[in-house]
């Protein structure tokens, strides 16, 4: 445990030193406070918008941003140290590969989690101060938990990339493609499938397919509780499916654990 904490502490401080924590928190805070205040500008009014509109807009932006940030933060975690020679050195220390992996995960995951909490928590607080509704905190709690899990999931996916690549530049390319796939291509493909099969695809199959993408699960968690009028596309169909938020969060959690396990297996087999 001491080893894991030592590594986690170092990674977390790296995140502070590189201004990662500060920049991510700022991005999230500006984004969420901005959307909370000006989200309704399109419909002609400025002021605090309704909770469901805010969450819907936040979720649809965060779903692009969070995976990208997590991948950027972590893609060079292992391949960078491998190129520098410190990975080999660390493995000669009384430190197992799993301890190193978990240490990095806790450290960098801590950065993501803290930034999400502070950044989005800011607008939760803002809304709460204006309206004094417990439901605001509840909805935002789900949002922050699912956003953190989404970030952690892509951190773990970034480790798979970082451990599989032998060059930093290749890892960067792979990270970008991964982001592009989960954030854009996957949904387009689903939509194409839906249109192409002329809705012969039933709702259950569609929802099950969406479980293959952590970004979609994140969207579902946050949109499930809202009026479907704020939601469009393939999501609207899936939202009516019978999956509770808790179930969705559990599936999202497995999207954190599964990539971690895969990363651990790849690390075990990795030749240095």
């Amino acid at each position, binding site marked *: 445990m001491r080893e894991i904490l030592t590594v986690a502490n170092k990674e977390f401080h790296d995140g502070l030193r590189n201004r990662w924590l500060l920049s991510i928190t700022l991005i999230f805070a500006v984004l969420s406070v901005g959307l909370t205040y000006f989200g309704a500008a399109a419909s002609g009014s400025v002021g605090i918008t309704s909770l469901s509109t805010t969450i819907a807009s936040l979720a649809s932006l965060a779903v692009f941003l969070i995976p990208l940030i997590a991948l950027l933060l972590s893609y060079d975690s292992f391949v960078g140290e491998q190129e*520098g020679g410190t990975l080999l050195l660390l493995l*000669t220390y009384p430190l197992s590969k799993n301890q190193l992996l978990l240490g990095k995960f806790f450290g960098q995951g801590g950065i993501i989690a803290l930034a999400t909490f502070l950044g989005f928590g800011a607008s939760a607080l803002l809304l709460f101060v204006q309206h004094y509704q417990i439901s605001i905190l509840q909805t935002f709690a789900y949002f922050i938990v699912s956003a953190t899990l989404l970030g952690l999931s892509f951190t773990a996916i970034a480790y798979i990339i970082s451990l599989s690549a032998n060059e930093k530049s290749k890892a960067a390319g792979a990270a970008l493609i991964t982001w592009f796939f989960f954030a854009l291509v996957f949904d387009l493909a689903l939509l194409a499938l839906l249109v192409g099969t002329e809705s012969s695809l039933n709702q259950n199959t569609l929802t099950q397919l969406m479980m293959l993408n952590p970004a979609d699960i994140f969207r579902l968690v946050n949109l499930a509780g809202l009026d479907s009028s704020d939601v469009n596309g393939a999501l609207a169909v899936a939202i009516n499916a019978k999956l509770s938020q808790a179930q969705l969060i559990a599936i999202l959690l497995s999207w954190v654990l599964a990539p971690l396990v895969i990363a651990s297996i790849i690390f075990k087999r990795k030749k240095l």
Partner: protein
Amino acid sequence: MNEPVVVLENVSKHYNELNALSAINLTLAQGEVLGLFGHNGAGKTTMMKLILGVIAPNVGDVTVMGVKPKDKSAWHMRAKMGYLPENVMFYEQLSGLEVLTYFARLKGQSKKHAQALLEQVGIAHAMARPVKTYSKGMRQRLGLAQAFIGQPKLLLLDEPTVGLDPSATAEFYQTVDQLKTQGTSVVLCSHVLPGVEQHIDRAMIISGGKTLALGTIAELRAQANLPIKIRPQGLNGAVVNDLALKNYLDEHGALHVPAQEKLSVLRHLLAAQSLSDIHLESANLEQVYQYYLSQAAVQDNNHKAGV
């Protein structure tokens, strides 16, 4: 505690088609300093990785301090090993002290210990500066400090003196001598460097993953049977006309004499009245190394011709 620190028995390691090491046997005693020589790709680093337990051999057994280094049971032993990899790039944005504290903590040591080590290697004045501002020599010193964490019983140093200026190199060898007296075993992995001979007990020369020679420098020298260079002065070319010496003479006026002829040639030279001075030079490590490498190349060619 006379049990050997490192034992390699008939160890082979191959990566796919490439034979990185084949049939290596080595025993390293406590407090012994071994020089491991070979050019790039000879298998030096593979051998270090085997001893460190980063990789496992395909054939044979590696035992370090009584356990197999790749085993879980070897965990506690890893804190007693120090390793300096070749060309390691430490975390550039951290300060020297932060880097060393990180590594020290991983070995269960304190920040104080890290600080003391930085003082020992002479970069304490720069410990608050980021590593990216360090010169090559300072980085190498930081690497050495890293290897010295926790008073290791076994040190594996890959090219330890690269980038060090002569005085730092001398300091480094002093440290090695000091560690040796404390009972630390050291493997110095290197291209052959002048000055290393006085500090190693035995030398191992490898090439293409095979042991070419293993023994004390004196043994290797004797085995190689390289001629001794004698440079007489004041004879004014008399040597050229001397039938007994003519065959040993090179174009610079030096004599290359087989070891067993040394004394008789010296007696012969000393008999000459005009001799004013005489220089004796045994083959140095570099020449011994070159000799074994060329022998191996000859054998290799013969082998290929035979097939």
